[in-house]
């Protein structure tokens, strides 16, 4: 009683598009996004960025300026990111409902990853929605302190969103930072593990040794991405907002840091534009 393959929308096509959209563009974007964000840490290695003050902040600002120079940015965002992520999320949510986790009886490592893949998917959807809604769509009522992210002041306004305002870490800011830490950690796991299972789904890795080898590579990628994710969240949660703002203002004005002046918050905090 083989079913005639006439179902619409095509079951197989939807399943494979779900798998594909997890890797391209979403997964590739995750790599570039974490590379950009962690520039607040690795940018400190770039001596060229020192002329504006905080080299990490300057490097991040430089990356953000590049992104904002992309033509048709909104169209790229809608069709390259938001729609594929929404597609992957909605189908993934629906598909995950069909499984019943049984790690209590069968506590194998692979089975734990199966379960964590679904948990990280659910929480990841929540996190991505909060992340995009607050920082991209400007739903500032969801941010403690009501910070509006500004691409000209990329690092300082991001740090304010994570810290609950511009006066150092608040309790509400700590909650947001913790949510970011958990959210990005789960999404990095979801991508690394998903990359491993996608190779089985598409039939790229067949033998157990091949699956193990690819698993080691996915785990390596996961560890590297996790390091970038943690460096980003911790970097912005601990960033000195005032010093960052000075660096950004100099970049915006096209002025290098005066050789004599050290970054002194008391001196220049009045120069912050009211936001």
């Amino acid at each position, binding site marked *: *009683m*083989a*079913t*005639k*393959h006439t*179902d619409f929308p095509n*079951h*197989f*096509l939807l*399943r*494979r598009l779900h798998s594909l959209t997890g890797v391209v563009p979403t997964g590739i974007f995750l790599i570039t996004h974490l590379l950009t964000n962690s520039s607040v840490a690795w940018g400190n290695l770039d001596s060229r960025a020192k002329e504006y003050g905080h080299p990490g902040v300057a490097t991040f600002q430089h990356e953000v300026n590049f992104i904002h120079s992309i033509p048709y940015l909104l169209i790229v965002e809608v069709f390259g990111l938001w729609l594929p992520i929404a597609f992957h999320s909605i189908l993934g949510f629906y598909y995950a409902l*069909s*499984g*019943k*986790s*049984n790690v209590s*009886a*069968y506590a*194998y490592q*692979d*089975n734990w*990853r*199966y*379960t964590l893949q679904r948990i990280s998917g659910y929480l990841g959807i929540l996190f991505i929605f909060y992340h995009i809604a607050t920082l991209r769509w400007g739903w500032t009522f969801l941010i403690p302190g009501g910070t509006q992210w500004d691409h000209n002041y990329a690092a300082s306004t991001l740090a304010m969103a994570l810290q609950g305002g511009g006066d150092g870490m608040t309790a509400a800011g700590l909650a947001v930072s913790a949510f970011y830490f958990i959210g990005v950690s789960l999404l990095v796991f979801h991508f690394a593990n998903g990359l491993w*299972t996608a190779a*089985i*789904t*598409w*039939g*790229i*890795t*067949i*033998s*157990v040794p091949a*699956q193990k080898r690819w698993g080691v590579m996915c785990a390596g990628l996961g560890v590297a991405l996790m390091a970038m994710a943690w460096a980003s969240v911790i970097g912005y949660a601990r960033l000195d907002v005032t010093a960052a703002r000075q660096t950004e203002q100099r970049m915006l004005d096209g002025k290098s840091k005066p050789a004599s002046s050290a970054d002194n918050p008391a001196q220049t905090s009045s120069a912050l534009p009211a936001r």
Partner: protein
Amino acid sequence: MIATISANPTHATPPTKLGRKVRFRIKRCEGPGKPSTWNTYTVTIDQKGANVISCLQQIAANPVTVEGTRTTPVVWDSGCLEEVCGACTMVINGKVRQSCSALIDHLAPNEGDEISLEPMSKFPVIRDLSVDRQRMFHNLARLKAWVPIDGTYALGGGPKESPEAQETRYALSTCMTCGCCLEACPQFNLETDASKWDSSFVGAQAISQARLFNMHETGKELAPARLDALMGPGGVSDCGNSQNCVKVCPKHIPLTESIAAVGRAVTLHAITKFFRG
């Protein structure tokens, strides 16, 4: 190679303490749709090599619970008693396996040890530990897991087969349709409505058999039809890669490799169909 056939090849058998009493906690059910209850029985181990089936025989001879209540005999299914037919598969101490090869000396080596027995949860219960495994045979039919010969004329010697392919296919051919892989699979769930079987996840057992017959020189003829069925709802893409199936398979069949191989076959089949029509 005898050692690999035993259920627990890595565990040395503990010395049998003859005369010890072992408790069996058994999930009972009077029939399809009826509620389940638990009964506990005590069995005296009076022979070496006692297994769960031999103890169930003792319980059937005298079905009196530890509370002293006489019950109906516990119903179970069994056949070969040498782990090749799959009929006696049940959930023992929370994990699925064959009860004929479940040795009491491994499970309950000491006086007063307890063993729990439950029917498989992914198939409808007929009574007590006996379940209806019809859905697995339905799924074999769904994927045309057979070699098409009509038997009206002599086919001759048949095509040659490489030793490598033969070795792979031999491992796949040892499947005894026991249901362990499906019981442990988080994507394969109980479905009592047989009309939904064709759109529910088909599971590792049938996927692996489809691979077996797709590799067969004469069975290849039906490969496109098998792959079409495997691309539909409940096909191979509904696998969630928990990989429990391969870990609980008593025949050590490389089920996850079968799933990946069928994944590759449907990928190529879909591309072929897209461009060729």
